[in-house]
């Protein structure tokens, strides 16, 4: 009897390993997803090890060297230097830190409540619970997130922390809506009915039966959202409502550098392309995941 359960366990693990292998085979067949993965790994590497791999780590903050101001890209300064002589490549690497941190904090804080709300509303479809939750999300979805985030930052002091808070407050409804669609279609499936019949509690059904079945859509959306949140964060600081100088933030760097167009174009174009680079990576990876997991919505 005991060895039987062990065999079943063994078989399950084997099956899982095979599934993973098959998934990787499918994923790696698409060279664009691999490019995305490489970009993201490179960005993570630069962000985490910025103090060690960046050429001039002391240039990250308030550093001034007017003798080297406005140097065009060269072998010494690959992306040139800015108006006060700081190496732009260094500041871009530290800027990746802020972008990634922003994206992970926002998604990490916004996804759990959003997912929970969507699951609950979907499970109690066509009841007052559903109506209340989904009408509230409708209100949040009625205005583009950037605009509401701006409005919130208006009444708060402009800094990175409040910018994150504002975007987080705007972000959870998107998860609610995604998960609601999946949960409300699953709530009539046989496996849910089976769990109900055997007397499983509602939290168990919601979190252990329905949630695992929506996880691939959630995961894909999270990957794609990293790119979108990075764009929104950069947009906020571009307008002047996010990170304040001398913080090395990509959006702030673009808006500061825009003053020196067209002659010192690299001051603004380098951080701008850095944003495109990281967002491109997450989008390629997200699209690859979507194809691999055969997720329709998102």
């Amino acid at each position: 009897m005991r060895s039987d359960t062990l065999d079943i366990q063994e078989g399950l693990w084997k099956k899982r390993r095979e599934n993973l292998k098959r998934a990787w085979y499918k994923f790696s067949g698409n060279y664009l997803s691999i490019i995305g993965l490489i970009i993201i790994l490179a960005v993570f590497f630069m962000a985490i090890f910025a103090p060690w791999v960046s050429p001039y780590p002391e240039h990250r903050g308030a550093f001034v060297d007017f003798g080297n101001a406005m140097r065009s890209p060269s072998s010494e300064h690959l992306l040139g230097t800015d108006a006060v002589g700081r190496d732009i490549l260094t500041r871009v690497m530290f800027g990746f830190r802020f972008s990634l941190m922003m994206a992970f904090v926002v998604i990490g804080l916004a996804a759990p409540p959003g997912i929970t709300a969507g699951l609950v509303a979907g499970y109690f479809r066509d009841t007052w619970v559903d109506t209340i939750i989904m009408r509230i999300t409708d209100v949040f979805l009625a205005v583009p997130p950037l605009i509401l985030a701006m409005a919130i930052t208006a009444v708060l002091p402009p800094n990175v922390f409040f910018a994150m808070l504002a975007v987080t407050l705007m972000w959870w409804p998107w998860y609610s809506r995604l998960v609601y669609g999946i949960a409300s279609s699953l709530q009539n499936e046989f496996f849910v009915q089976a769990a109900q019949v055997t007397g499983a509690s509602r939290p168990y059904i919601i979190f252990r039966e329905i949630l695992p079945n929506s996880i691939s859509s959630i995961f894909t959306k999270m990957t794609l959202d990293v790119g979108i949140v990075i764009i929104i964060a950069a947009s906020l600081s571009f307008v002047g409502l996010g990170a304040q100088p001398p913080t090395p933030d990509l959006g702030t760097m673009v808006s500061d550098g825009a003053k020196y167009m067209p002659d010192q174009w690299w001051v603004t174009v380098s951080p701008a392309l850095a944003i495109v680079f990281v967002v491109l990576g997450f989008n390629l990876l997200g699209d690859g995941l979507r194809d691999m997991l055969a997720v329709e919505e998102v």
Partner: protein
Amino acid sequence: MKISTFILRRLALSIGVLLGLSILIFVISRVVPGDPVRLALGARAPQEVVDKISAEMYLDRSYPVQYVMWLKGVVQGDFGTSLYTRRNVSHDVRVYLPATLELAFYSGLIMAFFGIFLGVLSVHKKNTWVDNLVRFISYFGVVTPAFVFAIIFVLLFGFYMDAFPISGRLSQHISPPPFITGMITVDSLITGNFRAFFNGLTHIFLPALSLAMAGMSQQARIARSSMSDNLNKDYILAHRAYGISERRIMFLYLLKPSLIPTVSIIGLDFAVMISNAFLVELVFNWPGISRYGVNAILRKDLNAMAAVVMILGITFVVVNIIVDVVVAYLDPRIRMRRDRSSAL
């Protein structure tokens, strides 16, 4: 469901959404730490002025009373006094909104025309270098923030090629047409001032293009994928078997049913467009409602900020109603379905 019932239901839902939105905006704009009027006017403003505006905003009353009075004003088109310009916010809105609407109109034109054109081109030349180029461009359109496009266009077309002006709505030497609709290209056409019309067009081109890029790419991608899906359907095969030319099939029989998905994401495109307007208007010094909104936010002018967010919210909701009705008209399957996704 009949289409009139559909529209009525849709309208009722939207009114609920707008009421909720007004509560949300009110909470954001009034429940600030400290005195909002003092915050906007600064420490040096005389106390009488602060008291006068506070009384106008009913700040001495309870929050529910303040909300009801504010909402009453909003319904009548009165958003209160701007804490910065000291003018009525509605007056400012009338001056700045047309510029943004004009920008959104041209941007929408570029988006729809080139988006669908690129999508058709991509399918027509499927798996050739043309297709790959279109897919490459539309991918970058999606991942590039609008302000990056704006800056690159300013550099390329403004400074290096010197082909288009990069700031404002008209050149200095052109006298603006009289204020009729507030949209320069429309007003100059009405008054027959073609010089101002063409000058206005050259000014609007770059900002409209920057604003259109994201939506255009999205449209191209959706058009391509929905046309590819329909390409293998039996009715297309039947048309081919009858010997109908490939071009005719493409534009007459394939495009129309494939347009439904592209129309239904116009609402989303519009959302992206009005968010991006905040960035593009800033880069091109475009005197529109979004730039006004950014300035209101930076100056903590809460009345003006609430007005801008509320107006954009209303515009967005109205656009979505129109899109839903058009899609329901095009695609009867949607009218029949009682689905939540139509209730945004």
